[in-house]
């Protein structure tokens, strides 16, 4: 770029650069994000609305939806409690091995989904460490709802904690200390001071956790046993239909999952819109 031109007409160059950058970003987002989503819906409605509705009205689809919601409804609260506890310990106290604890929280993120289901089989499967004991006591974990929950909890474990830690770090603990000095009990302090302060980040974490929980495939596939109508979640139902050449059915269930994903994103955007400043100040990621 000619610097002389740049200096003489800063407004124009700047506007052009800005326009080019926006266009580039939008084209990328369209090609990369919108198109796959569109593909799912186009394939789902390929044969019209009636076959679409028909295929999601089947009892297997309904039970898959029910199971997916059930598993998420158990896994997400578990990880919320864990996330709050871990964030509290990590951000309010100094102790040895803190970095290690942080690394452990992130660990599930780096584990290949192929492995994350397998580990529970190694533990609770008939050939696993606790398999014979569980078998003798008639407890079912693998190939039943508890196994699905465990695998989902493992996959989604980091998200709530990861959301809360940077926020609580940056907020500091002055307000909480003040509450204590003024005589609040531990739980009073938690519910009146801490929770209100972190609620939006917490909700954000819950939404991410939930989105991932409903969509998890690899790990769940290993521990599910694929019993139709009983241990088959929506992503597994997608795969099974796909493997039966029922493409409309597969994409129809996939479109429901995509809708759930969009719903989650919608709620998130709504939150950001209404409480934009509060959230933007401590949005996710962090270090």
């Amino acid at each position, binding site marked *: 770029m000619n610097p002389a031109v740049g200096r003489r007409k800063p407004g124009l160059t700047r506007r052009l650069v800005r326009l080019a950058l926006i266009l580039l970003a939008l084209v990328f987002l369209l090609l990369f994000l*919108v198109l796959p*989503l569109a593909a799912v819906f186009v394939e789902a409605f390929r044969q019209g609305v009636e076959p679409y509705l028909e295929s999601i009205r089947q009892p297997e689809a309904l039970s898959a939806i029910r199971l997916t919601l059930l598993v998420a409804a158990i896994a997400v609260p578990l990880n919320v409690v864990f996330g709050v506890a871990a964030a509290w*310990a990590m951000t309010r106290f100094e102790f040895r091995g803190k970095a290690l604890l942080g690394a452990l929280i*992130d660990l599930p993120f780096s584990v290949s989904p192929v492995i994350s289901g397998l580990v529970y089989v190694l533990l609770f499967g008939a050939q696993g460490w606790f398999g014979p004991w569980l078998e003798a006591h008639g407890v079912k974990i693998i190939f039943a709802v508890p196994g699905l929950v465990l695998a989902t909890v493992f996959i989604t474990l980091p998200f709530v904690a990861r959301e809360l830690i940077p926020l609580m770090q940056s907020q500091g603990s002055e307000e909480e200390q003040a509450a204590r000095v003024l005589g609040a009990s531990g739980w009073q302090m938690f519910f009146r001071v801490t929770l209100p302060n972190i609620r939006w980040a917490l909700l954000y974490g819950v939404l991410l956790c939930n989105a991932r929980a409903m969509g*998890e495939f690899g790990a769940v596939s290993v521990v599910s046993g694929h019993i139709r109508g009983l241990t088959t979640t*929506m992503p597994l139902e997608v795969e099974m239909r796909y493997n039966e050449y029922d493409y409309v059915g597969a994409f129809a269930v996939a479109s429901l999952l995509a809708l759930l*994903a969009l719903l989650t994103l919608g709620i998130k955007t709504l939150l950001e819109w209404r409480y934009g400043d509060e959230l933007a100040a401590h949005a*996710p*990621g962090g*270090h």
Partner: protein
Amino acid sequence: MRQRVLPGFGLSLGYALAYLGLIVLLPMAALAWKATGIGLGGMLHLLSAPRTLAALRLSVGGALVAALVNVVIGLLVGWVLVRYRFPGRRLFDALVDLPFALPTAVAGIALPTLYAPNGWLGRWLEPLGIKVAYTPLGVLVAMVFVGFPFVVRTLQPVLASLERDVEEAAQSLGARRWQTFFRVILPMLAPTLLTGFSLALARAVGEYGSVIFIAGNIPMHSEIAPLLIVQKLEQFDYAGAAALGVALLLLSFALLIVVALLQRWSSRWAEASR
């Protein structure tokens, strides 16, 4: 000290540790224990096999390149979403999380629909001699897809809080815009970009569901490491599968440590350049 004022240390740490122990440590111990089943010799033999090396190269190399691509694109998208106001900005902003929320199985069957030679995009790329689906490039595309949200999402808050006066000061001192960008803004963003990089990397290394349909799965060419694990399982070779899983995990850990060191170094650099 102030730590004493706040309650719940024992409870919160104890609970967090017990939970992690049960959900993460115990299963990982089982994995490591199973992996020892093939012995040191078996491990060396497994890891030195050309097939294993090629698959690890594709998984790890692909994830590195994908994370790098995501840093560039993520910087662009993050910048545009934070700095510019345009119609539909919120919509696009919400869409950034889509790869995160979209189930991998769905992404896995949607991506080939787009990139196969007869796909929506593939039919335009094919005449140009660009083959995406069923090549290592397809693996890369899927990996970029799954890792995409992480760079944007880590970058956005930092970009928003980046003081404009730093840029303005630089410009008033006669720096050109691109100089300001490369000499002032980029160094300040470097630690954040590295965080996004490592998240995108970790996500992509072990990815299976969304990659497997678009990879050609040809041995030595477009076969990813998690697929080798699946093949081991197909022979009822749990120990071999566990060993490969541990190797993949250690490899991605080593990379993450390198990134963390880079990050430490770059944040000092960022401090210095302030």
